[in-house]
């Protein structure tokens, strides 16, 4: 009974359990349960596969071999598609037309670094070590509630953070040769959204802005085809203008190959020069760059060299300098605002800010250096776009000042040049503007640059590239010694455009080094090439600023007239030549002692005029005896008619100290020292041990200082100094004494005269030298 009861009880309980199990199973098919939620993807976890009495509709195969390799069935494409086919969630785009997707069924390349977490790869590979859907996706990854990132990823992908976890070699921005990410794009183009692009917060660029991991339109999972650079130009719309230029190498040089080995006609215009990853430095450069001093210029010079793709447009010597700070031109560049210290010359015009670069070749917003990109926009043939050819029609031939990829059209006023060189704008108001200088000289006009109208007036003298010499000079060098002189005399010579303004055979010497002469000056000095060099010598541009007619009034229009003749107040002089001969004194400080002496014609002959018809008041005291150009003689650059004398110095002095001369009241009775007597000059005298006596100036027959030469007027007289005791003269016509009279020494004891004439030589000379002195000091009867 008990046994039967127990058996019966066991059977009842078993039956009840079986019944309940069957009920539970039936209910499980209708209700949400953990088991069912899991098996929605993990289909092989279904207990149906373990039933022995019913064959399932599909075989039990928990780790099938599919096209991506052997892996968990839950991560197969079929499972994914069973929901993402549009009926539950819509990811149909992934399977449309077999478009490009993130590689699966492949082992990660060497550049991929899958991070480890607790010894396990954060992004697992399948049984064969290959990438599969489950590498990136998991239903157990990202929290469904967080809306910044797609769900079903193994980690958040905010700002493409997940992409960059593996693709670290694609990160770091331009410094590492990669397109910047997290860069604020503002309002991304609609075309990109339509193509499936994604952007970060506030429209920031992320990996998925260009790449779609699934169903991309082109290779590299690009959101749209880029073989004509369509993708690049969607954001970089301002660069589309390159299409119609010679820089569109997809058309102009279809065989050009970038560093990736891709041909221009395959990659489109952008990728010939720029690649988004593994680029060579700034501007994501895609071509080999020469090792140049200016990294910002290197991309351009990579083609524009003698052996480059653009060898016809090679940049050679005497081209516009680069890597020069714009501050040197008096320009303060801050963001989109430029300010010049020459603002008054702008006449109300605004400077146009141009790109500037740092020493690494990257664009900077403050300060910065000039480089190729400052003047040229390689993507725009004509700055105003008006001369753009039709699409797919390449601008051919040489450019001009209105094209040539210039950022500002030159126009007649050389607007691009003047935008930086504001201080040179005044040249337009002078005879150095050919429109003024050559007016009335029709024969000469042909010698100007033919396309002055397009290239601007600056181009008459300067070529931005491949000039003839220093300052990118546009003309063949003229004669002369100095670098600047050769530039000036290209025109200022008998066969030049300024043949009426030649400097003659007796002009101020070039190349004199003031430092070596122990002098100082504020005027610029130049080296043999014509470049400014404070240790260099005097050159034309030491006295002349060829861009400015009138130094103390830059905007003066007095020089803007054809045939106008200059004077000491203009004539492109850096310092005006007024009553004080300021310009001369910039170098010849010691000669200032002539002021207020009898040799200062402002004192003794204010109405006198030199050979250039200049009065003392117009050109100052210096210019009455000396002129810089077209002088009567080379030594002393004499500015007056010489007199009769047995040597040059005597001739110069007697030009005035003669009966018809300005100093006819000061004609010495006996002027001449015997020419047969040659005396040693200071250096030689010192060498021979004559330490007692100071040096004496002796001269050769040409009036030049000599070591052994004749004694003449200036051996005893310093015409620039009335008295050794005073720096200036008395300011009136005065009879001199042995202490004055422009004498170099005050007595005869210490001068060379005593060598021959005894210690009272000076007294005796004065006694017998002129009638007046003889009267004043009569000999005792």
């Amino acid at each position, binding site marked *: 009974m008990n046994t039967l009861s127990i058996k019966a009880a066991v059977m009842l309980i078993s039956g009840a359990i079986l019944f309940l199990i069957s009920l539970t199973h039936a209910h499980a098919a209708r209700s949400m349960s953990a088991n069912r939620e899991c098996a929605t993807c993990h289909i092989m976890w279904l207990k149906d596969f373990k039933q*022995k*009495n019913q064959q399932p*509709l599909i075989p039990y195969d928990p780790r099938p071999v599919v096209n991506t390799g052997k892996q968990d069935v839950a991560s197969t494409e079929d499972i994914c598609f069973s929901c993402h086919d549009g009926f539950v969630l819509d990811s149909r785009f992934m399977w449309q037309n077999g478009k490009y997707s993130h590689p699966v069924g492949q082992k990660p390349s060497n550049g991929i670094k899958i991070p480890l977490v607790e010894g396990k790869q954060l992004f697992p590979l399948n049984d064969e070590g290959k990438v599969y859907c489950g590498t990136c996706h998991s239903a157990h990854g990202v929290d469904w509630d967080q809306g910044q990132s797609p769900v079903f990823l193994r980690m958040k992908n905010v700002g493409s953070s997940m992409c960059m976890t593996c693709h670290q070699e694609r990160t770091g921005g331009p410094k590492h040769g990669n397109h910047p990410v997290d860069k604020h794009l503002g309002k991304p183009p609609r075309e990109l959204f339509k193509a499936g692009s994604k952007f970060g917060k506030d429209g920031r660029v992320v990996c998925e802005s260009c790449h779609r991991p699934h169903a991309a339109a082109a290779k590299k999972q690009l959101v749209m085809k880029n073989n004509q650079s369509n993708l690049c130009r969607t954001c970089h719309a301002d660069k589309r203008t390159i299409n119609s230029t010679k820089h569109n190498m997809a058309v102009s040089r279809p065989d050009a190959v970038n560093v990736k080995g891709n041909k221009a006609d395959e990659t489109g215009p952008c990728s010939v020069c720029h690649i988004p990853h593994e680029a060579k430095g700034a501007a994501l450069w895609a071509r080999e760059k020469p090792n140049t001093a200016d990294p910002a210029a290197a991309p351009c010079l990579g083609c524009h060299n003698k052996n480059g793709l653009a060898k016809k447009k090679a940049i050679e010597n005497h081209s516009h300098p680069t890597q020069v700070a714009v501050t040197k031109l008096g320009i303060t560049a801050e963001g989109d605002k430029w300010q010049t210290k020459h603002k008054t010359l702008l006449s109300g015009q605004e400077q146009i800010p141009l790109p500037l670069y740092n020493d690494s070749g990257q664009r900077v917003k403050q300060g910065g250096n000039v480089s190729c990109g400052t003047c040229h926009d390689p993507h725009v043939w004509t700055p105003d776009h008006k001369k753009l050819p039709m699409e797919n029609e390449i601008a051919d031939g040489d450019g001009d000042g209105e094209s040539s990829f210039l950022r500002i059209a030159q126009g007649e006023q050389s607007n691009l040049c003047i935008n930086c060189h504001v201080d040179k704008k005044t040249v337009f108001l002078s005879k150095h503007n050919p429109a003024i200088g050559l007016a009335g000289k029709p024969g000469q006009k042909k010698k100007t640059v033919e396309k002055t109208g397009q290239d601007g007036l600056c181009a008459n003298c300067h070529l931005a590239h491949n000039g003839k010499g220093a300052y990118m000079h546009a003309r063949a060098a003229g004669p002369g010694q100095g670098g600047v002189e050769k530039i000036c005399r290209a025109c200022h010579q008998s066969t030049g455009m300024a043949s009426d303004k030649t400097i003659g055979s007796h002009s101020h010497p070039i190349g004199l080094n003031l430092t070596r002469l122990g002098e100082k000056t504020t005027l610029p000095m130049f080296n043999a090439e014509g470049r400014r060099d404070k240790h260099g010598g005097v050159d034309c541009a030491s006295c002349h600023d060829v861009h400015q007619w009138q130094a103390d009034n830059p905007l003066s229009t007095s020089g803007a007239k054809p045939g106008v003749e200059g004077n000491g107040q203009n004539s492109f002089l850096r310092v005006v030549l007024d009553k004080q001969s300021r310009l001369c004194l910039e170098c010849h400080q010691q000669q200032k002692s002539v002021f207020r002496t009898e040799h200062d014609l402002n004192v003794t002959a204010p109405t006198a005029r030199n050979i250039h018809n200049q009065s003392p008041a117009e050109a100052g005291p210096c210019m009455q005896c000396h002129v810089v150009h077209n002088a009567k003689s080379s030594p002393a650059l004499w500015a007056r008619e010489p007199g009769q004398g047995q040597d040059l110095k005597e001739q110069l002095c007697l030009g005035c100290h003669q009966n018809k001369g300005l100093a006819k009241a000061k004609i010495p009775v006996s002027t001449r020292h015997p020419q047969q007597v040659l005396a040693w000059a200071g250096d030689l005298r010192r060498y021979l041990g004559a330490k007692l006596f100071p040096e004496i100036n002796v001269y050769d027959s040409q009036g030049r200082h000599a070591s052994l030469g004749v004694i003449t007027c200036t051996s005893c007289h310093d015409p620039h100094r009335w008295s050794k005791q005073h720096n200036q003269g008395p300011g009136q016509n005065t009879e001199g004494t042995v202490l004055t009279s422009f004498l170099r020494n005050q007595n005869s004891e210490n001068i060379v005269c005593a060598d021959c004439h005894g210690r009272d030589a000076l007294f005796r000379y004065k006694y017998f030298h002129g009638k007046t002195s003889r009267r004043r000091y009569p000999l005792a009867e």
Partner: protein
Amino acid sequence: MDGGNKDDSMTRLSAGCISRFYFLLRPFISLILLLSGMSLFAAEKIPTHAIRHLFDIKGTTATPLNLPTDIALTNDRIIIVDSGNHRVQVFDPDGGHRFSIGREGIDKGTFRGPTGVDTDSSGRIYVADSGNNRIQIFDAEGKFLTAFDVTRKDQLIRPIDVLVHEPQRRVYVSGNTNHRIMGFSIGGYLQVDWGGDGVEPGAFRYPATMALMPDKRLAVVDVLNSRVQLFSPAGENPFAVGEWGVLPGQLFRPKGVAVNDQGFILVSDSYMGVVQVFTDEGKFITVLGKDGKPQKFRTPAGLAMDKKQRLFVAEMRANKVSVWQVSPLNKAGAE
């Protein structure tokens, strides 16, 4: 007491005999049990019903099908939603291409990810333009007639399928994001709706394609609830057909439903790649196939069946619609 002892000794004797006999017979008993058990637990053969492949519709070289999702039939037309190409293609009954309707876009007559299609007795074509949240209506020649929006309370419904119910003069729409069935007037005014996200009868987890029963009830595929639900035109009296699983008669990812003249309900399963047949009472009949082997379709979705018992299967990832002749069905099941 004695009597009792005698009984006890008899019991012990008989027990001992049985015990010895049992040990002798035990191997034989085990063998018998094993054999009988094997016969009891042997896997039951899958019931299949013969079908014969007629032809495939893949579109033309110029207009190939891409991810076809649904099919509608008229007397002289086969209308296929070419969802991957964002268009509808129309074919002759023998599969010859007639014309295409639309392209990708948001304007009238264009589509974004269309999913379902149906026709009315006039041959008008009704398309569930999922990505554009609207139903678009074209005439039999593909000319755009009208469209109505199915956005509900600013919620994008993403209509999956459309069913023209001429007796009710309604157009029923299955809503993906609201998990509801909505009955609109021909003019686009909502007249009835039911459902909601859930597992209980009448609720849905992603309602998908629909078919009209001979008795004018609606058959609605309830994807993640792994069932087909039958409703009256007013959404009443829900009745479930099929259950979750991978065994015959069970559904894993049902997507398409077709009903023949006899009321047999054919359901496609996109993951398992099979089409199963149920009665309108929910009884599993058979699996289309042969000799116990189900016919494998490549991600089958929408189904349609004409009066000649030709079954049209939209095989999405095969980019084709396959056409099959189904031998007459009966409630007995297997062929």
